[in-house]
């Protein structure tokens, strides 16, 4: 990682900013998750909105925070890891809050997967939901029909989805922009309709009774007990999903700093110029589709094992659109922004349940407002830094 070689050593102020930023973020998230009163939820939302308005008005503050994180990466990493690992224990045994966290983390994986394409290479893809579904169904069918262990179904499901991803990438050789977007939309609808109609996928009823995984004799359906502290069973999947997010972030960083990431960015900048520089445009486009499908299938397998019941309606066109919205609202080609986008768009509809009938309306309005007020996304992509900050 280029930023690992700081131009200036981290000062105490940097460390304080990092700690305050991470603790503050965790606190706001916790407050939002555990809040029941609509006044508190609205207050948290207004606070966040005000925070982003401040960043929009005073870019210097944003620069300072980013610089602090760049200069003190070790502090940020250790503190961040401690916070996310301890997080389930701070949820006061609230299994609903934990459930929301697991779903949000899975969507974060999906959004990170799509980010390789949409963010890095600017290839529209409305089929992430379909890859998610292919992964979930492949894993569930293996577990139900052949009794394969969850840990073995993970790579197999990912391989199956990757093959489909390559197939989907095939038309990208010639079609572009809106036309390519339509190909992916069509692919997503075909997959959804086939899952809905085949007998061996359970038709519209889906698959029921997918077994929960277990590790070293500890079943994921049982609560975790550490040092007398007891957290609900959802925490198992929280850690599993967390590991997946970590894997996705690591993959994103490594790819971003590799020749592949550079090639994708070149594609985004100007496809023709990239071709002239000797970049194999077709190969890198298909690779982007494959990476997206691979990660999405992981998320699908975990989702299937987590809820133990999947149906085609979990993997519709609207799911793909939601993932796309997460990437664009969060900030394209910025892993952190994409994760924030995923959390925001997962938690917002759930927390707005208090507005019952109005909630989807609110979500739509909030998305439009975000796009209008902060058009580059909540956390815009940053220029590559090669050592110098």
């Amino acid at each position: 990682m280029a930023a690992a070689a700081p131009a200036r050593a981290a000062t105490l102020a940097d460390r304080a900013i990092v700690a305050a930023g991470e603790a503050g973020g965790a606190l706001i998230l916790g407050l939002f998750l555990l809040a029941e009163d609509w006044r508190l939820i609205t207050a948290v939302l207004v606070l966040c909105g005000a925070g982003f308005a401040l960043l929009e008005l005073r870019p210097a503050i944003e620069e300072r925070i980013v610089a602090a994180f760049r200069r003190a990466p070790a502090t940020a990493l250790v503190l961040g890891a401690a916070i996310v690992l301890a997080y389930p224990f701070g949820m006061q045994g609230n299994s609903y809050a934990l459930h929301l966290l697991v779903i949000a983390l899975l969507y974060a994986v999906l959004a990170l997967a799509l980010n390789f394409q949409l963010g890095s290479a600017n290839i529209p893809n409305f089929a992430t939901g379909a890859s998610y579904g292919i992964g979930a169904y492949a894993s569930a069918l293996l577990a139900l029909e052949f009794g394969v262990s969850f840990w073995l179904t993970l790579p197999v499901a990912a391989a199956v989805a990757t093959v489909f991803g390559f197939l989907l990438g095939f038309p990208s050789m010639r079609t572009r922009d809106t036309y390519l977007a339509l190909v992916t939309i069509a692919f997503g609808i075909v997959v959804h309709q086939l899952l809905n109609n085949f007998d061996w996928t359970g038709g519209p009823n889906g698959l029921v009774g997918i077994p929960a995984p277990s590790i070293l004799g500890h079943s994921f359906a049982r609560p975790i007990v550490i040092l007398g502290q007891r957290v609900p069973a959802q925490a198992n999947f929280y850690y599993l999903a967390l590991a997946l997010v970590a894997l996705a972030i690591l993959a994103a960083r490594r790819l971003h700093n590799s020749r592949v990431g550079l090639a994708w960015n070149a594609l985004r900048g100007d496809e023709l110029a990239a071709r002239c520089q000797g970049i194999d445009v077709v190969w890198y486009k298909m690779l982007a589709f494959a990476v997206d499908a691979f990660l999405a299938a992981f998320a699908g397998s975990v989702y299937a094992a987590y809820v133990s019941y999947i149906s085609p309606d979990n993997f519709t066109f609207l799911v793909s659109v939601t993932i796309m919205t997460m990437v664009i609202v969060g900030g394209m080609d910025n892993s952190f922004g994409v994760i924030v986008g995923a959390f925001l768009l997962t938690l917002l509809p759930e927390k707005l349940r208090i507005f019952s009938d109005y909630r989807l309306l609110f979500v739509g309005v909030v998305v439009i407002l975000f796009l209008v007020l902060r058009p580059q996304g909540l956390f815009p992509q940053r220029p590559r830094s090669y050592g110098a900050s």
Partner: protein
Amino acid sequence: MDALVLQYVMNWLVLGCIYALVALGFSLLFGVLNVIHFSHGDVVIVAPFVVLAVLQGLVAAMPAATAGALALALAAAILAVGILGVIADWLVIRRFRRAPAMMALVATVALGTVVRELIRMFYPQGSNPKPFPRLIEAQVALGGVTVPVFSLLAIAVSVAMMGLLFAMMRFTPLGLRIRAVAEDRATARLMAIRPGRIFAATFFVASAVGAIGAILFASYAGAVRFDFGIQLGLIGFSGAVIGGLGSMLGAILGSLLIAGIDVLVQATMAEGASYRLVFAFLLVILVLVLKPSGLLGRPAIEKV
């Protein structure tokens, strides 16, 4: 057997015309604005609801004049949806003129959700499907086969609308201005054409034409629900894209193709009804693999 074939052909033409009316809106808007108005389907599906509401109000007020009430309701719906299109542009889409294409796309998807939810909330019991009357119940004998007058009417109205649209684009000052703005926005400005007005006019025309399609669709299906717009919009969008975005003839051709495979699958396969979307969208993929910029679209040649 002949009667059955004729019925399928009629279904194909009716469905193809309905899809084409929606697809023309997509094509027109893309040609002029270079924007994908993904909420187009949701905006136009408001039309049947307006028809139902106005019809109910009028029948309650004066139970006698049903034909007049229907005509009034149809006119009100088309006008209202045309204005709704302009409002959608003014409130949301206008703000993404300079943004990357994907931003506008996601914003209009969110806008579609908002429109859908507004229908669901403000129309009484909006979550349930509403029965929608056939505009004309009568049947007519055609070469020894009875054909519903509605089918003939739907085809006639659609063809007339397409003709009007072509004539408007080719022969009226408004059409000339729309084409000028589509060709080159900056030069059009120099010729004293206000792009803002042309955008509003384009949105009005596209939405009003789509509204007619949506009313015919509801009447053909016999019911309307708040989320019918998603599928109608997707198929209309597909028709416009496989025909070649920006080409009006292409939009009609693409829609007829999609409706054709839709009806063909339902007619020939045992479980056709549940596989119709699979084949329709496989066709979409196939067309785009073979013709990457649509059937009648200009191939994208990039100059350096």
